[in-house]
């Protein structure tokens, strides 16, 4: 073992790990640039390296990218990678109130801790954990997805019905395109761009980031509340938080490792499951979802634990645990390394050198991550809005493009952003929609496969409810769904016993609010109806899931309409201030997408940035001020374009100009 340690810590490997972590962190922090892409771009470079050095470099990039996703999540409410979705729930509220630096430090400490737990499991428990992961069949994946959905109950406090409707909408969005289980084309309305379905990362960016941008330009207020003075890393405070959350940290890291070891689950689910558990057991103030640092601890430790966890099936079974693992697996095969159980049992030095390299990279992430995190916080909290809005908007465009090299994905991102903004104004939060979108495919595949297997063995019920592992997940799901209602239930019971004062009836909302509420519910009901009608033309395998969801959604809408009419409760209309400026954001972005094929990516991007600069600037500015602003924004756009083209080999359209 000691030999491996020594060879892992060779000067070359230390340099590679350091570079890898730093590059990964930067890449992960840009919404749209995922760990998968970072690793895929670098694979050819590793061909000329020794296999273990190549693995260490790739593993370090992967680790860094998963952590880097936290920055945008905390500072811009936009998960840089899907693994960081849960980080937005508490990270952004913390940043809003001026604790962004603390949140970034907590994210770094949690990521390091989670990464170490994952790597330790990979070192000590890989073969047995891989065997255990095989016990997870289609039914268990189905129930795991439903468990993930149970977070809706917690995320939509105040309006559970709206959360459920939003989730159903997300589940339906996930069924657009060619179905993976039945090969049937669904809900594309004849459009070729929708054939491949809605790309999840670009949808995430749209739903989370575009509404933030739209709201940013409306007022001259600062983006984040700045703390009274710059307090640096706030490490003592961060350590105190970690200590308070030690059980949370360990539990989340273990959840991350286990979920990571399941091929077909991945970092986003690990983070969500860990968040859900942390929230259920968390007692301290402020509540989860309003800026409790425990939420960051849970998600960030869990998602970095999936790195080590995901390598377990990759190395032991030769089956990638997460998408970046799939790329790394390919690189290993080219290097002539055969994965499989023998890799561990032969005492082959590659594996152990690599695992120690992963430890090294994870530990290096502490200084690297803190430093880059501080820089990111400084840049985003101090940047004037007129610089922040165009640069972030451009990053969302280039990031959404780079995922599949597709401008159509950028268009879908912007449109979903507008949908998300409208939905939020009517009291439908975007998180349930995102959960539905992410978990929809896993849920549907698991459901159809279980149904097929259940029919073949002649007992569908036993297949869905009779397996011990499923029963455990079902129990946890019920607990998670019901838990947020415990306080209400207690009040209700107390009132029945006559020990509590009668409920005060809330005053009826103004007629206009009720009208808007009914319109919003009507739109969702219409979508459900459309799906039900369309699914009559599909084959039964392709139709069963969307139809079931749509029928449920229709029922929920009907229930919500009845409740609104009876109680008169409705979400009040939002601020109307700065509507013209707000509208500029999506319009300028969509126009840029239309112009890019003609004029080129950089020119289209610069035009968009110029318009957004004007829209975001409220005070009068001197000519010199404008010039400085324009130069800074223009340079950033140009650097990003050139960097994506040459360093990342992204085929950005050049059009007629550039």
């Amino acid at each position: 073992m000691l030999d491996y340690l020594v060879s892992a810590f060779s000067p070359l490997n230390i340099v590679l790990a350091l570079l890898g972590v730093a590059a990964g962190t930067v890449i992960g922090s840009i919404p749209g640039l995922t760990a998968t892409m970072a690793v895929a771009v670098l694979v050819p470079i590793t061909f000329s390296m020794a296999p273990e050095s190549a693995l260490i470099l790739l593993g370090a990039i992967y680790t860094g990218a998963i952590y880097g996703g936290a920055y945008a999540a905390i500072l811009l409410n936009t998960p840089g990678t899907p693994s960081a979705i849960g980080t937005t729930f508490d990270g952004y509220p913390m940043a809003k109130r001026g604790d962004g630096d603390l949140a970034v430090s907590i994210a770094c400490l949690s990521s390091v801790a989670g990464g170490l737990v994952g790597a330790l499991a990979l070192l000590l428990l890989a073969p047995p954990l891989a065997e255990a992961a095989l016990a997870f069949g289609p039914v268990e994946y189905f129930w795991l997805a439903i468990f993930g959905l149970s977070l809706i109950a917690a995320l939509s406090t105040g309006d559970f019905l709206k959360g459920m409707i939003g989730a159903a909408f997300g589940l339906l969005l996930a069924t657009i395109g060619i179905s993976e289980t039945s090969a049937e084309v669904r809900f594309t309305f004849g459009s070729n761009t929708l054939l491949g379905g809605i790309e999840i990362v670009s949808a995430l960016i749209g739903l989370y980031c575009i509404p933030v941008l739209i709201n940013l330009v409306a007022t001259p207020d600062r983006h984040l509340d700045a703390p009274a003075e710059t307090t640096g890393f706030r490490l003592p405070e961060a350590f105190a938080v970690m200590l308070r959350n030690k059980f949370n940290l360990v539990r989340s890291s273990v959840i991350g490792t286990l979920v990571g070891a399941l091929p077909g689950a991945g970092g986003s689910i690990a983070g969500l499951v860990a968040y859900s558990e942390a929230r259920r057991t968390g007692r301290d103030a402020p509540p989860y979802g309003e800026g409790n640092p425990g939420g960051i601890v849970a998600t960030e430790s869990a998602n970095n634990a999936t790195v080590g966890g995901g390598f377990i099936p990759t190395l032991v079974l030769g089956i990638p645990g997460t998408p970046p693992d799939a790329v790394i697996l390919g690189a290993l095969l080219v290097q002539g390394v055969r994965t499989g159980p023998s890799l561990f049992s032969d005492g082959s030095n590659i594996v152990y050198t690599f695992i120690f390299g992963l430890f090294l990279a994870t530990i290096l992430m502490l200084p690297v991550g803190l430093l880059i995190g501080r820089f990111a916080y400084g840049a985003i909290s101090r940047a004037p809005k007129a610089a922040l809005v165009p640069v972030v908007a451009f990053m969302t465009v280039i990031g959404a493009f780079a995922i599949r090299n597709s401008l159509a994905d950028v268009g879908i991102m912007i449109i979903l952003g507008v949908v998300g903004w409208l939905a939020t104004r009517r009291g439908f939060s975007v998180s349930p929609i995102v959960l539905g979108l992410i978990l929809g495919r896993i849920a549907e595949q698991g459901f159809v496969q279980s149904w097929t297997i259940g029919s073949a063995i002649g007992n569908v019920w036993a297949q869905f409810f009779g397996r011990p592992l499923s029963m455990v997940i079902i129990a946890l799901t019920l607990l998670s769904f019901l838990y947020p209602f415990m306080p209400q239930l207690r009040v209700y019971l107390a009132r029945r016993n006559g020990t509590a004062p009668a409920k005060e009836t809330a005053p009826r909302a103004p007629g206009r609010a009720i009208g808007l509420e009914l319109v919003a519910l009507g739109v969702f009901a219409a979508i459900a109806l459309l799906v039900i009608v369309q699914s009559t033309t599909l084959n039964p395998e392709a139709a069963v899931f969307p139809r079931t969801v749509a029928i449920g959604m229709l029922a929920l809408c009907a229930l919500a309409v009845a409740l609104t009419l009876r109680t008169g409760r409705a979400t009040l209309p939002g601020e109307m201030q700065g509507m013209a400026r707000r509208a500029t954001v999506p319009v300028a972005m969509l126009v840029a997408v239309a112009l890019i094929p003609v004029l080129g990516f950089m020119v289209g991007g610069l035009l968009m940035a110029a318009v957004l600069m004007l829209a975001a600037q409220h005070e009068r500015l001197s000519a010199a001020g404008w010039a400085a602003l324009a130069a800074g924004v223009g340079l950033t756009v140009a650097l990003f374009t050139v960097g994506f083209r040459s360093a990342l080999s992204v085929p950005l359209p050049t059009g007629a100009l550039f």
Partner: protein
Amino acid sequence: MFRTTIAALAVSLIGAAAQAQDFPSGAVDYVIPFGPGGESDITARFQQPFFKDKFGEDLVVSYKPGGGGAVGWSQLNSMPGDGSAIMGVNLPHIIVKPKQGNVGFQTEDIVTVHMFHYTPDAIVVTADSPYQTLDDLIADAKANPRAVTLSGSGKGTANHLAQVIFDELAGIETTYVSFQGTGASTTANLGEQVKAQWGYTTVGAAQGDKVRMLAVAMEERHPAFPDVPTFRELGYDMVSGAYRGVAVPKSTPEEIRQQVAEAISEINADPEFQKKMLDGGFALVNLPYGPELDAFMAEKTEEYLAAAESAGVLN
């Protein structure tokens, strides 16, 4: 009008430039219409270093996944036709998909210039499965119609069509459970969620002692698995699998089509490349642009469409 003129001008310029230069005249973008880690990605990665060695230019692998390949193929012809962009193609996908509905491309739209290997279909069971031979599986399926479940990658795919063809040949009825990709299908088999797997010889190579292949759909036994019989030896006439190759946009001139095909052939002829492929469980074929490839495509089209018809996956 102005735009079309510009576009036409650009196309003719590019065309002229392309004719002046040989392939490859710079880095070549190799688009895989699937995600990373699958057979298409791995074989492209195998080719990558050989391409660089032989022709001195980078082969840049990128992914355009979605719709079981449809997203990539529907955009193939909008890529530059100067040899700077090539795309992976798969059979039966490009034959069966367009017949399942509007997937944004037709089989004829795709200019395949080379088919360089295939992954032969194989029935894979776990090492401790009660099925020792193909006959054991057939006997079980005869005694319990539809109760024998087999995992496989996707619907209307090589795995699925193999199941349909074999069920007809053997006179049995089995249940095919579709998973997303070979990785997920192998996981289900290893975890004994299903009784067997319609996989490829590559699964046997990757999983080693953990699995047993009952038969492979090749003309002769695979050199890496001398003990595994072919379906033909056992009396079932099937040679099938997923064939993979390289396509170029329609706008690519004839010379460059030829040159791309020659480049791929040259890599295919390299003994070191061949060894890597065979060790990985792949089987090489060498069908460069020309009449032989056309005849092969015509034959396969007929075969796959007939199987897809009886699988009930066509619209």
